[in-house]
């Protein structure tokens, strides 16, 4: 990643997995005791919007678990999307990567083929959920990273460099069906609980904006490092 990377910065990062959730400012918080045991066991059915946020959304309950993870990660960015002007939302690109894809959701659909479930049998559906919630209409891409190759961060940075997007939300989410996927996926970027969601917000460097140092790690590792307790690296643009 060379060239004009320095014009663009990471403004925020977030993470959610079996151990907890948080963002670059709060660090990772452990799950509160209620429900923590289920989540650590990997029972994502226990994951509710109200587990993290002071609100409820009926739509969230209809989503598959991959979409829940991705959407929660974006909400955890706490990036003020709700106050963004419509014209700016048209320029926000959303780039998703997932190593596991939606295989676990596919298995559920095979067991119970319902119309409401079919929409989630695509790894890119999380991208649609994010765009619907935040009214983003910029460029879109869902990549399934090939081992050893680049992913969403590289693609999103390209959008910014070429002027195809004004800001980019990059999301990585994985829901691992261990029986099917364990041997096929790189353990480096998959958490022990078998599931994770993370997000970063990329954009141009602007005066006074939150800013995290650029690194070319894989997206989950990058977000995890920014959200680790005791390792907040945010600071004003300088």
């Amino acid at each position: 990643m060379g060239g004009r990377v320095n014009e663009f910065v990471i403004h925020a990062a977030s993470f959610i997995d079996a151990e907890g959730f948080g963002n670059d400012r709060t660090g990772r918080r452990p799950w509160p005791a209620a429900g923590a045991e289920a989540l650590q066991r990997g029972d994502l059915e226990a994951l509710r919007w109200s587990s993290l946020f002071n609100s409820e959304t009926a739509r969230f309950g209809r989503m598959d678990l991959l979409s829940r993870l991705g959407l929660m990660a974006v909400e955890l960015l706490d990036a003020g999307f709700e106050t963004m002007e419509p014209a700016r939302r048209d320029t926000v690109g959303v780039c998703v990567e997932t190593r596991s894809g939606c295989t676990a959701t596919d298995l559920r659909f095979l067991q119970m083929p319902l119309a409401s479930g079919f929409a989630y049998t695509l790894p890119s559906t999380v991208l649609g959920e994010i765009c619907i919630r935040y009214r983003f209409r910029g460029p879109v891409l869902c990549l399934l990273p090939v081992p050893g190759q680049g992913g969403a961060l590289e693609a999103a940075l390209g959008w910014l460099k070429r002027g195809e997007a004004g800001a980019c939300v990059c999301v990585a989410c994985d829901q691992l069906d261990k029986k099917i996927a364990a041997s096929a996926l790189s353990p480096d970027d998959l958490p022990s609980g078998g599931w994770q969601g993370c997000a970063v917000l990329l954009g141009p460097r602007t005066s006074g904006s939150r800013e995290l140092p650029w690194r070319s790690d894989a997206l989950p590792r990058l977000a995890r490092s920014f959200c680790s307790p005791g390792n907040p690296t945010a600071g004003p643009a300088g």
Partner: protein
Amino acid sequence: MDPALTTRRAAIATGGAVSALGLGLETLEAAVRDHPSGLRECPRLAGKGFQSTVAGFVPEEIWHELRQRDPAHADTPAFLLADAALREASNPLWNRRADDRATPSGAGQAGWSAPPASRRGLVLSTTKAEITALEREFRQQPCSPIAQRQLFPALLAADLAAAHGITGPVQCVSTACISGLLAIQQGALLIEEDQADLVFVVGVDLLSDFVLSGFSTLKSLEPGGCRPFDADRKGLSLGEGAGALVLVRSETLAPPALTVTGWGSSNDANHLTGPSRDGSGLALAILRALQKAGTPPEAVDFVHTHGTGTPYNDAMEGMALRWVFGARVPPYCSSKGWFGHTLGAAGLLETLVCLVAARQQILPGTAGLRTPDPSVPDSLLRAPRPAASLRRLLKLNAGFGGTNAALLLEWGGA
């Protein structure tokens, strides 16, 4: 924008296709001229309770040939289809003569030589990859380790790259039914940004029970076969197949060649399985493609639409075309009546239709169409006809998740 990024462009050197129409790019060339339908009753879908058993399926004799040729992949049909398309696309590259001007693409012209493996890339487009492996797992039927592995699209991409001696960049795009156009975009970027000298872009998807049952639950299939843009259209027909194309730097091809000049994507931010009702999302994607290419709307000669045949999709596309082109919508068509909706392969197969249409300077027709919907623009192509000048071609796709994509292609000099 960095000026260095605008100096290189990718052009399509060769292609390969396998679909309901048969094996080989010549099947698409014949389709553009002769306007057939590849949709038929599919015996392997019968008696399973699907809303429709009319589909664009690869003929059994082709499956037999592919399995005979590669027994190790006999239970990985997605690999077999993608590999067949890639083999056809790559043959002219390696078998060319130094002065071979007869290759269909112009590959092999002065200035072009086969790049080393590390400068060759591959981008795969698929929605469900080797989904039949999951079906077999679920039914507790035998499933080879290769099939289990290729259930993961990224690993199918890696295996295809290895099989074709590619050690450069490899990507896998899975963004619903716009995957194919995004994969071409990603491949073109690898050329433009000098990460590769030659990129294979391949799209593949299978006609599976999984997908048929999904679209049946949505009640979006047309029992008699799709009729895009027809006044009485009721739904889509699914298909299977693979399309591959080879991208190289445009200046290495002798003109005329088909160059990728622009692309754009967008999201409707509206609905997961239905398009926006006003076409504004697709219009945004088209305008972005035109802007990247520096092409005004009035310079577009032809539009190859997504054209699934569902009432909402086709109405949405008609509105998007009017949004961008006003009262002067260029001639447009859909190819879904030829080989069905092939999902992750659609963008590739339909871009190859644009390629053969440009080579033959023919505007393709819209198979399945009987009575055009009076509400869509009246420049809809019912049957093929010679083009006065087919130079700038616009390819569109839209998909679940509110996704839209547009690709602008230019036929002519480098």
